[in-house]
């Protein structure tokens, strides 16, 4: 069977990729997608730990359910905000909405 560490490292890689995406994607939607990657990496971690620690423990898995629910809400709000930005700035590139700085 695959080891916990292997899986965890894979998840960490996913996490890092997500972070890289957040940091580099110029398109706001790209950032939102990358955030989803991060969430997924965390979700996977929870599942992995649940399976590895104590198979009878379900809290990790339940957490994942909550995360998915919250992620949905967050995505909805995020996209709503995105449209708002689009409406205001006619653009969704991150370097376009920087009226405020300093």
């Amino acid at each position, binding site marked *: 069977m695959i080891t916990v560490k292997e899986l965890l490292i894979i998840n960490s890689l996913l996490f890092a990729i*997500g972070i890289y995406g957040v940091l580099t994607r110029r398109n706001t939607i790209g950032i939102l997608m990358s955030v989803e990657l991060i*969430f997924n990496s965390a979700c996977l*971690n929870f599942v992995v*730990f649940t399976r590895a620690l104590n198979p009878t423990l379900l809290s990790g898995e339940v*957490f994942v359910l909550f995360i998915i629910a919250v992620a949905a*809400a967050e995505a909805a*709000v995020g996209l709503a905000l995105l449209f708002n930005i689009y409406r*205001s*700035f006619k653009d969704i590139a991150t370097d376009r909405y920087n009226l*405020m700085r300093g």
Partner: protein
Amino acid sequence: MDISLLKLELILSGLIGLIFVLDLLSGSKKIVRYAAVAGSLGVFIASLFIRQTGDAFAGAFISDGLSLIFKSLFLLNAFIVSMLSLGFLEKNGRYTGEYFTLIFSSTLGMLLLASSGELITFYIALELLSISSYVLSAFQKSEQKSSEAGMKYMLLGALASGMLLFGMSLVFGATGSLKFSGIAASLSSGSVPPIAYAGIVLIVVAMSFKIAAVPFHMWVPDVYEGAPSPVAAFFSVGTKMAGFAVLMRLFLTAFGNLRSEWGILMAVLSAATIIIGNLLAIPQTNIKRFMGYSSIAQAGFVLIGLAMATVTGLASSVFYLAGYLFANLTAFGVIIIVGSRVEGDNIDDYSGLAKRSPFLSLALLISLMSLGGVPPLVGFFGKLYIFVGAFENGFAWLVALGVLMSVVSIYYYLMVLKRVYIVPSPDTSPIKLTFWEKASLSICLAGTLGFGLLPLPLFNEILSSVRIFLQ
């Protein structure tokens, strides 16, 4: 499972529902507004009387002295912000119901956060707080800055949530528990596994983001500047305090045996926060942005109290936050009122305010001086308690830095007061205040002055609850 411990939360949820329904049914936004003000006052008053402590949901919900104090403060914040929002909503009244729904759900998130004893509740509460905040930031849809603020806040908040989640998963993996008590038990038995450290770091980062510690502070000025003023006021106090509430709980219960390490970590963070916050406030021209940096600096002082990880340290931090609430809301109150009258948030717009409204000027004077730590205002005692504690715990260098930076803070606060009192303005038409504005400012001023002159009762109250909490 004692659901009666959740009275406050239930009442507040009820209020949310009421507002929601009223907004749908009643054509009058006015009723909604007054219902919101009255309701928030009601919940706040209720919070003063509901002092029941205990656990519910198998430790997922903890009601203790500390959380009760924080809850009262959150509710007070909500109440004052509701009053201060009235003017704003009269102009942007279309979404009054939504506005209050979001404010109160955010407040509910804070309440839950202060009471959460387990990671899931913690996470959900935090998201409840955050998601409402994102929307609130972008509330003025027609304003580019507002949209920008909402988007920035949301993106960074999501990143922070992601990091928090990953950190939680690692902690969960390392300890096998989601409950704070379980985590604590696991961490205190045997050596702390490295992934737990990594997890804790991620959690700390996420919370530092909420309390705007440097270098996780960068969203603050932008969001404060872009968000509608009442919303910025709400964040500046509520979100920050909620972050501190949960940090305190996490570090004193869940990660309790790592105190010495995170003590120094917090000290470093606080030093960076105090320096950056204070320095960057200097060149600001927008008052809300300015208040953003000022609030960053204030958070730095609170962190000193956290760094001590002692009863007095925590009590000082809580006291500081309470004082900060009054002073900061006073300042924001003035900002909201002036902003609505002069249609601008530049510091230069405050020129000649003393002529236009002595009361507002005095309020601003008192609040800023309190934030600057001038006796005998409440901010001074906050700082005093913090410094006293830090001195006791060997953070003399931090005290020196804090004291020095207080001088810097006096400088920039005086730069604002200079406009208010010294620089003349061509427009000398007096500013008239509504009842609500007067009321909210008076309450905050009373707190700033009252707890400054008589800090003892409040401090004792906080001290005793923190002491219980730590045992």
